[in-house]
């Protein structure tokens, strides 16, 4: 797509967000639903920066769509969640570093391709390094994973991947702060405290007490529960990996660990949470009322949930079957998918984690100080 056409398309997304925000700011019936509308009411007109920020404050609970007197078929054709989703996806793309921008259109394809490639390459590498007889043999005891993938290679690949992800995400959130005209609000510690509370409780999916509107216009806590399972599952897996990393490389106690060791307990709980959470989110996406959704964002959302689901499922399978001959293959599949996850994190749905947090910090600061 030519640069000019892309620019026009981006302007159209911003213009639509601006149009719907103008209607909402004159109506204001939704001010009790979430954080976005009170934040909107602090403004009279909306710069591109304001809109980029507000779009990322939207949790896509869809409460506003179902109570909107201007939603289709009204001639105003106001579809607030859709306009916000489209703009959110645009902010992800805009803030990605140069060549990674290209991964946003057709995001599902790239997420799938990168993960598959990582899995295949890792498997091929292990097969070449150790030979099929070792790869398909059963290994037990400490260090048995390194029988499949050599210690040095494992350390190098995953440290580089993690570094890439962290740098790209930090770069992304700084870019987001810039395109949303953020100032020094991020220095406000009280705002961080509030934002962390909002994140940990997933406050803005509670619809003021009755939940959000999934899969249809009835209020339900189901999305909040699935999202919590995903979020805390992810955190537990992160903790598990961190503990294992320290045990292995710090204390020289290589994996695999016993079923009742700290990393395995954390990882098992986290993996189960992720399987249930992402599975549930995927199910909701397939049965939900599609009208308030942004059709262009669904692929990105589904790809991320699917990948997380497969990562956690393969991890659990590896745990169960690690003493069998399938361990080598499962290890490569699991680690390949993890690698794919790391590599696609900064150019897919995962970005919403950091952008949402940044938007919540800014919102907490604005509400606390009364200043935009």
């Amino acid at each position, binding site marked *: 797509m030519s640069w000019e056409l892309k620019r026009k398309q981006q302007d159209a997304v911003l213009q639509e967000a601006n149009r719907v925000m103008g209607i909402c700011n004159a109506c204001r019936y939704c001010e009790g639903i979430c954080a976005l509308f009170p934040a909107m009411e602090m403004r009279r007109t909306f710069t591109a920066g304001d809109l980029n920020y507000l779009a990322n404050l939207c949790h896509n609970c869809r409460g506003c769509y*179902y109570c909107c*007197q201007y939603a289709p078929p009204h001639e105003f054709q106001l579809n607030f969640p859709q306009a916000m989703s489209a703009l959110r996806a645009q902010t992800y793309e805009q803030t990605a570093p140069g060549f990674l921008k290209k991964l946003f259109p057709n995001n599902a394809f790239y997420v799938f391709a990168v993960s598959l490639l990582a899995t295949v390459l890792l498997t091929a590498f292990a097969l070449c390094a150790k030979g099929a007889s070792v790869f398909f043999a059963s290994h037990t005891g400490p260090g048995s994973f390194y029988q499949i993938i050599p210690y040095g290679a494992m350390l190098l690949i995953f440290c580089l991947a993690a570094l890439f992800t962290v740098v790209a995400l930090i770069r992304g959130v700084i870019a987001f702060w810039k395109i949303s005209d953020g100032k020094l609000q991020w220095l406000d510690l009280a705002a961080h405290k509030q934002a962390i509370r909002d994140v940990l409780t997933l406050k803005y999916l509670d619809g003021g007490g009755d939940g959000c509107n999934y899969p249809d216009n009835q209020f339900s806590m189901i999305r909040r529960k699935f999202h919590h399972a995903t979020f805390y599952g992810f955190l537990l897996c992160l903790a598990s990996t961190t503990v294992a990393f320290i045990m292995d490389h710090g204390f020289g106690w290589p994996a695999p660990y016993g079923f009742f060791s700290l990393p395995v307990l954390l990882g098992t709980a986290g993996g189960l949470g992720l399987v249930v959470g992402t599975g549930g989110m995927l199910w909701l996406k397939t049965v939900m009322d599609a009208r308030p959704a942004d059709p262009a964002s669904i692929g990105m959302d589904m790809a991320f949930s699917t990948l997380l689901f497969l990562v956690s499922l393969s991890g659990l399978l590896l745990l169960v079957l690690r003493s069998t001959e399938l361990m080598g293959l499962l290890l490569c599949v699991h680690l390949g998918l993890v690698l794919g996850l790391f590599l696609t994190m900064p150019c897919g749905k995962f970005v919403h984690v950091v952008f949402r947090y940044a938007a919540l910090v800014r919102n907490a600061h604005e509400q606390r100080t009364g200043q935009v």
Partner: protein
Amino acid sequence: MNKEQTTLDHINTDVLVIGGGNAALTAAITARELGANVLVLESSPVEVRGGNSRHTRNIRYIHDAANSFLTGPYLEEECYNDLLMVTKGNTTEHMARLVIRGSHNVGDWMMAHGCRFQPAMRGTLHLSRTNAFFRGGGKALINAYHETCRRLGVQVMYDTEALDLEISNGNCTAVRARGPQKEYLIRPRAVVLASGGYQGNSAWLREAWGPTAENFLIRGTPYDKGAMLKAMMEKGAKTIGDPTQGHCVAIDGRAPKFDGGICTRLDCVPFGIVLNKKGQRFYNEGEEFWPKRYAIWGRLVAGQPDQIGYVFIDSKSINLFMPSVFPPLESDTVGGLAEQMGLDPAVVEETVRVFNASTKPGNFNSNELDGLATEGLDPPKTNWARPIDTPPYYGYTLRPGITFTYLSLVINEKGQVVQTNDAPFGNIFAAGEITSGNVLGQGYMAGFGMTIGTVFGRLAGKEAATCLGN
């Protein structure tokens, strides 16, 4: 049996509710909870269900004490006096008191049936003691009531319009209705009419107002055609109310013909001047706070040539009121703005000059009646009168926006529709806007349409279910 009748689908029900707004659903829920089988005819498609209620936002009701969303007590006498003030005494006391008393703590009933309230927020604080605000507005309330209806087993037919009633010996024996595919002959044991005013019927509006009605905008649903009101009038129901009276406010002239709802309101009038097509002022723009005056400006604008008004403000005032959905016209000169609005620039410049010359220095305060008045000007502007002299200048057009009409069926204290001979129809009840004239003769009080709908809706539902035993 003739050919037409053979194509009708026959339906039997205990209570037939005609209408799909707040009053209708309140009546349906009440009757269902008393054990009646209930069928609701909603003339609109499901997406725009709820009549005018989907454009509402709050209900006024009396309560003895503050709670988490109302800031203080509001008692019967105060509410009645407020009503007397807005209607200039043009009400029926026993019916008004019936509504007010019936509203006592009605928010509790609403919450028990799915409604969620929130505290009043920016822009509506002046109502925070008297009115309870629905979280998400009226459409959220309607969604909640529909969910309750579904749970209770109330049957709802969308896209289905009641056409006519058959009445014999003062009782309704059948209702003819048209759905998307076919027509129905419904035989109810009792009927609740909650089908709104007639403001969506442009021919009827023209009949009442004359050709000026062409220039009225309808703020709410286009589905309120007054079919049941007309049918009952033809069948000897007694009416109350002047057909030209209604909840009529001044709104942005660029609003859609129907369903513009809340966001077409303009709150800038007190901070500027309003001219008619001839470039002349015609009323005191600063008489009172806008929420206390917006309901008279609809009729004021309706009385001007071509039913249009032009608001002029300057840059000092542009941020003092709620943002409007359509951006204002803008110019660096008063004459330029007048030209954009299609007015004679010379006349408008002279009007503004005369107005500016009559303003006096003083302390302007948009949050109180600041007494900053013009001197020697007719009509005067008695508050917030600052000269219009700081470009850029901004302009809006105003049109009369009708929310609902007050011409109503007379009902008695059981909610029964009354005949011209003052005897009630046995099994025909009414609630909501179609009964508003029993209480509102003129003027309007924020949130009181929902009070009338909820109280009369509950009354009609209860009496309809009760009369089944007779």
